C-alpha cells in the first residue's frame, strides 16, 4: 500500500457517545464485516465489554474504502489539492471513553494522524470530550468533530456546535452530523477522513522504526504486539530488535486486524498491524518501545510513552489459606493480559497471606475483581481500596505506601504526601455552587470556571485523588440530576496533614481495616467507620468493642452487644424446609467471614471502610 493511500485515525469521545457504534458502521460500509457477521459494538469483544456495554481496550482495524473523489462541498485543508480517487487503507482505532482507560486513548493517538471526535447531539461536550480533544490537539492530530446521535428525539445540535467552538477551540463549521445507530451520513465520515486526515509521512527506505502501541496475550500465539510503522518496512522472517527492551527476535507472523487477525507479507510506512515473535510474557514487551531491524538499526528510538502507574490499591486474600497459590496463578494470568494491573504478595495479621493489587482506578479494579470471581475458583476477601502515598522520611529516603499499614511512625515522617488530581467538571450552570461546595468540603483548590454557553460551565479544581475516586462521580451525578461529568488527571504528589486511622476490634488492631485520612476528617471518619462496622459485624457470644484510634488515642467507639437469643420457636412439618434453607443461607453468608481472634468479621465489613465515606 502506498503511503498516500493510507489514513490513520482514532475515534475518541466521552463515554457512550457512540464510538464503537460508529466503528460498526465504518466496518459495515467498507465491507470489513458482512451484514451476517454484524452485531452491535462488534469490536467490544471482551466479556466485560459486552457485559457492561463499554469499551475497555482500544481496538485497531484496517478497512478499505473506495474514495470516489471530492464532493462539491468538500472541506479540504486550505491550500491542498484534493486527494486522488481510489482505494484507501484506513486504519481506525476505537478507544475507550472511561477515565480509567485514558492511557489507551493517548497511545492510540500516537499511532495516528487524525481523530474523529464524537459528541453526543444531546449531551454535548462532556468532561472526557475535553480531555480527549486536548490529547489529540497536543499530539498535533487533525481533528474531525462529529456530532453523533442526530436521530435522537431531542437534540441540541446548535448549542453543541457552539460548545465545540468555545471550549475546544475547533471550527464548528467543519463538524459532520451523523447517526451511528441509524447509519446516517456515514459516507461523509469516510470521505472526510480521506480528505482531511493527512497521509502518514515517513521514509520507506530509511531504517525501520515501528511504534509499539499496544499488546495482548493470546493463549495460542503468545504475545501479539501492535505496531505502527513510522519508517522503513517490516516483513515476515525479519530479525527485529526492541530498542528499549534490548531484545532480538524473529518475526514468525505479521498481519493486520480486519477486524480479525489477517496475515500479510509486510507492513510499510503508515501501516498499522501486529507482529508475533514467540515472546511468551507480556511483561517482555514494552508499550511505547520502538521496533527496528536487528541488522540495520535506527539511530534513535521514537519518543514512546510510559506505562501508566497504578494509583489505587487494595488487598486480596483467599478466605481459605490453601487457596493462596491458586490466587497467585489467577493474578498472574490477569496481569498477562493487562500490564497496568500489578500485584505483590503481602501479609496481614487479620487476613493472613494475600496480595496487594494495584489498579488504574475503581472501574479497573471492579473489572479485575469481577473476572477473578468468575474465572478463579477462589473465595476472596477484599480490603477497601486506597490511593498510593509518598512519604519522605527523616534522613531523606522516599517511600511509596500502597498499604496504610506500612505507614511509618509519625516520628519518622518528614513529609506525608498524597496524589493530587486536576479535575475537570462539566456541569449545568445552576449546579456550580453545589459542586464548588462539594470540592471545598473535600479539600479542593479552585482553579477556574469557564462558561460553555448560557447553561453549562466547565469547572476546574485540584483535589486529592483520595477524595474523588470513591464516590465523587456519584455525588456529582446526584447533584446535577445526572447531567454533570468529570474527568481527572493525576498531576503529582503534594504534602498534606495525613494520619493513619486504626480500627481496634475487641482491643486488637485489625490491620486490614486501617486507612489513611486527612487529620481534619479523622474524627468524623472514625465515628462513621465504627458505626458502620457495628452494623456489619454480627453479634457474638460476648460484647465486642469497636474503636477508632490514631496511634494510642481512641477517637471513636461503639459496642456490639452480646448475642442473647436467636432461636426459632416452631419447627414442625411445614416449617422444616424453610427453616433449613434459611439457616443454610445464613451459614453461606458466614463463609465470607474471617475469624479474627474470637471475633468473626464478614468480608463486607472490610469494604465498609469505603461506604463510611466522609459524610454522615
Amino acid at each position, binding site marked *: 500500500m502506498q503511503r498516500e493511500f493510507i489514513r490513520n485515525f482514532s475515534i475518541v469521545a466521552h463515554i457512550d457517545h457512540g464510538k464503537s457504534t460508529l466503528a460498526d458502521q465504518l466496518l459495515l460500509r467498507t465491507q470489513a464485516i458482512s451484514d451476517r457477521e454484524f452485531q452491535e459494538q462488534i469490536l467490544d469483544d471482551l466479556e466485560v465489554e459486552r457485559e457492561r456495554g463499554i469499551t475497555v481496550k482500544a481496538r485497531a482495524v484496517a478497512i478499505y474504502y473506495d474514495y470516489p473523489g471530492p464532493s462539491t462541498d468538500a472541506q479540504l485543508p486550505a491550500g491542498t489539492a484534493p486527494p486522488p480517487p481510489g482505494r484507501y487503507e484506513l486504519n481506525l482505532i476505537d478507544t475507550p471513553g472511561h477515565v480509567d482507560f485514558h492511557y489507551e486513548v493517548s497511545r492510540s493517538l500516537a499511532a495516528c494522524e487524525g481523530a474523529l471526535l464524537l459528541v453526543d447531539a444531546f449531551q454535548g461536550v462532556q468532561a472526557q470530550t475535553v480531555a480527549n480533544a486536548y490529547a489529540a490537539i497536543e499530539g498535533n492530530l487533525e481533528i474531525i468533530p462529529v456530532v453523533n446521535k442526530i436521530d435522537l428525539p431531542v437534540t441540541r445540535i446548535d448549542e453543541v456546535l457552539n460548545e465545540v467552538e468555545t471550549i475546544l477551540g475547533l471550527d464548528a463549521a467543519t463538524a459532520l452530523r451523523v447517526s451511528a445507530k441509524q447509519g446516517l451520513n456515514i459516507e461523509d465520515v469516510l470521505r472526510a477522513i480521506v480528505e482531511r486526515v493527512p497521509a502518514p509521512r515517513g521514509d520507506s527506505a530509511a531504517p525501520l522504526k515501528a511504534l509499539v502501541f499496544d499488546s495482548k496475550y493470546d493463549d495460542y500465539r503468545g504475545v501479539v504486539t501492535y505496531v505502527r510503522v513510522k519508517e522503513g518496512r517490516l516483513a515476515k522472517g525479519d530479525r527485529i530488535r526492541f530498542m528499549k527492551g534490548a531484545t532480538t527476535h524473529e518475526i514468525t507472523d505479521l498481519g493486520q486486524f480486519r477486524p480479525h487477525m489477517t496475515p500479510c507479507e509486510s507492513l510499510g510506512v503508515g501501516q498499522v498491524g501486529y507482529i508475533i515473535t514467540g515472546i511468551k510474557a507480556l511483561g517482555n514487551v514494552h508499550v511505547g518501545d520502538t521496533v527496528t531491524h536487528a541488522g540495520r538499526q535506527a539511530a534513535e528510538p521514537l519518543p514512546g510513552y510510559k506505562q501508566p502507574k497504578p494509583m489505587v490499591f487494595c488487598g486480596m486474600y483467599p*478466605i*481459605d489459606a*490453601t*487457596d493462596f497459590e491458586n490466587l497467585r496463578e489467577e493474578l498472574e494470568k490477569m496481569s498477562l493480559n493487562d500490564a497496568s494491573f500489578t500485584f505483590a504478595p503481602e501479609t496481614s495479621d487479620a487476613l493472613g497471606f494475600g496480595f496487594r493489587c494495584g489498579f488504574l482506578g475503581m472501574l479497573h479494579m471492579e473489572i479485575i475483581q469481577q473476572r477473578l470471581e468468575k474465572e478463579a*475458583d477462589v*473465595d476472596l476477601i477484599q480490603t477497601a481500596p486506597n490511593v498510593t502515598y509518598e512519604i519522605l522520611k527523616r534522613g531523606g529516603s522516599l517511600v511509596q505506601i500502597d498499604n496504610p499499614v506500612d505507614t511509618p511512625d509519625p516520628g519518622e515522617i518528614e513529609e506525608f504526601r498524597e496524589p493530587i488530581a486536576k479535575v475537570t467538571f462539566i456541569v449545568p450552570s445552576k449546579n456550580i455552587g453545589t459542586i464548588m461546595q462539594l470540592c471545598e468540603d473535600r479539600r479542593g483548590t479552585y482553579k477556574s470556571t469557564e462558561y460553555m454557553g448560557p447553561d453549562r460551565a466547565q469547572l476546574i479544581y485540584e483535589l486529592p485523588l483520595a477524595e474523588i475516586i470513591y464516590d465523587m462521580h456519584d455525588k456529582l451525578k446526584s447533584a446535577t440530576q445526572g447531567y454533570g461529568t468529570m474527568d481527572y488527571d493525576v498531576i503529582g504528589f503534594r504534602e498534606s496533614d495525613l494520619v493513619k486511622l486504626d480500627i481496634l476490634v475487641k482491643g486488637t488492631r485489625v490491620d486490614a481495616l486501617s486507612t489513611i485520612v486527612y487529620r481534619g476528617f479523622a474524627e468524623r471518619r472514625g465515628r462513621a467507620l465504627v458505626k458502620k462496622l457495628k452494623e456489619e459485624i454480627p453479634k457474638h*457470644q460476648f460484647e465486642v468493642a469497636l474503636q477508632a484510634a490514631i496511634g494510642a488515642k481512641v477517637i471513636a467507639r461503639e459496642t456490639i452487644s452480646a*448475642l*442473647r*437469643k*436467636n*432461636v*426459632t*420457636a*416452631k*419447627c*414442625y*412439618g*411445614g416449617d*422444616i*424446609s424453610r*427453616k*433449613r434453607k434459611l*439457616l*443454610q443461607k*445464613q*451459614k*453461606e453468608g*458466614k*463463609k465470607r467471614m474471617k475469624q479474627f481472634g474470637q471475633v468473626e468479621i464478614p468480608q463486607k465489613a472490610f469494604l465498609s471502610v469505603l461506604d463510611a465515606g466522609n459524610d454522615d
Partner: protein
Amino acid sequence: MSRSESPRAVEPAIAPWGPPRAAYVHVPFCRHRCGYCDFTLIAGRDDLIDRYLDALALEIERELPGPVEVDTLFFGGGTPSHLSPDQLARLFGIVGSRISLVPEGECSIEANPLDLDNERLAALVQAGVNRVSIGVQSFQPGELRLLERDHTGIEARDAVRRVRRAIPNVGVDLIFGTPGQSLADWSASLEACLALEPAHVSTYGLTFEKGTSFWSRRERGALRQSPEDLEREMYELAMEQLPAAGVPQYEISNFARPGFECRHNETYWDARSCWAFGPGAASYLGGVRRQNHRSTTTWIARTLTREVAPPALVEELSPEDRAREAAMLGLRRTRGIDSAAFERRFGAAPRSLAGAAFERLVSAGWLEESSGWLRLTREGRCVADTVLMEFLSPL
C-alpha cells in the same frame, strides 16, 4: 466455591426416613386471623368448610388407595375445633375411612378455648381423639387483647378443666415476648398454666413474620418488639419454672410430664416419614418432602376438579443435606441425638457436619457431648439458630 473437605454422607442401605407411621391433617379455618399469625388458613369463610371436607376426602382417596395404619394422627390448623360438631364428625369419618390408629396410638387436635363446648367434646371423644392442644397463649387480659384472642384468661382456665374431664391429655400453648409483656407478666402466665396441671406446655417466643399485621405495625413503629435480653430471660424462666413444677423440657419450645411428649411432633424432629393432607400440609414420604398448595381456595378448587394443585414445594435432598437437616431437627430435642445411631441412619457423624465449628460451639458452652449423645446446652438452646446453622453447610 470452597475446596474444604465436606463430610460425604453415603445413603445407608436402609432408608433413613422409614415407613410412614404418622399422618397430619390441616384444617385451615379460623374465626379471625390473629395479628401475628402467618399459618395457612382462611378466616371468616366458614362457607368453605363443607367444600374443604369434600376436597379432603378426594385428596385422601387419591393419595391413599388403600387403608393405612398409623401410630399418630394430628389435626392441626388453623383451628380444627372451629368446625361445627357435624363437620367435625364428617372430618373424622373421612380421615377414619382410610387411616386407622393403632390401639395405643396418639390422636391430637388443636383447639381454641371457646370452641370446646360439650357437643364438640363429645365428637372428639367419639372419634378417639386422645390429646388436645389448647391455644391459650396468655392469661393476661392486655396481652390477650394485643394478640387478638377472643377469650379471657378465666375462660381459658375453664376450658382446660372441662376438656380434661373428657380427655386427660391436655396441652397448653403459651406465647412470650408479646410487646409490652414484663417478666412478671410472663411468670404469672406460667404460674396460672401450671396451676391447671397440664400434661404438656408449649412456649413460643413471638416472632414477627413477613406479611402479618404485626410485621407491618412493627415496620411502621406502631409495635415494639421485646428487647432480646428480656426475651431471653423469659425463655430461661420457662426453662426453670416448668421443669421445677414437674414438666420437663423435651424440645426447644416444648415441655411435658414424662410420657406425655407429643409423639406426632417427635416424628418431625426424628426426620421420619409422615402423610399429610389439606392445604399447605407437608408430607415426607420416601425421602421426598412435598408441600401442598398454600392457598386454601386454590387447593379446594383444584382438588375438587380432580386436578392436583401445583405443590408449593417438592424436595428430595442429597444424602448429605438430608443428614444436615436431620441434625438440625434432632438437636432441637433436649436429649439431643444419639451420634452412633445417627451415623448408622444418615451415613455421617453429626459432629462431622459442623466441621471446624464443632469445637468452637463446644468451647462456647453451647453444645455438649456426653456418653454418645450430642445436645444443645441450656445456653445453646437460647441461641439454637446460631448453633444449628453450623450443621447446615460445609465451610
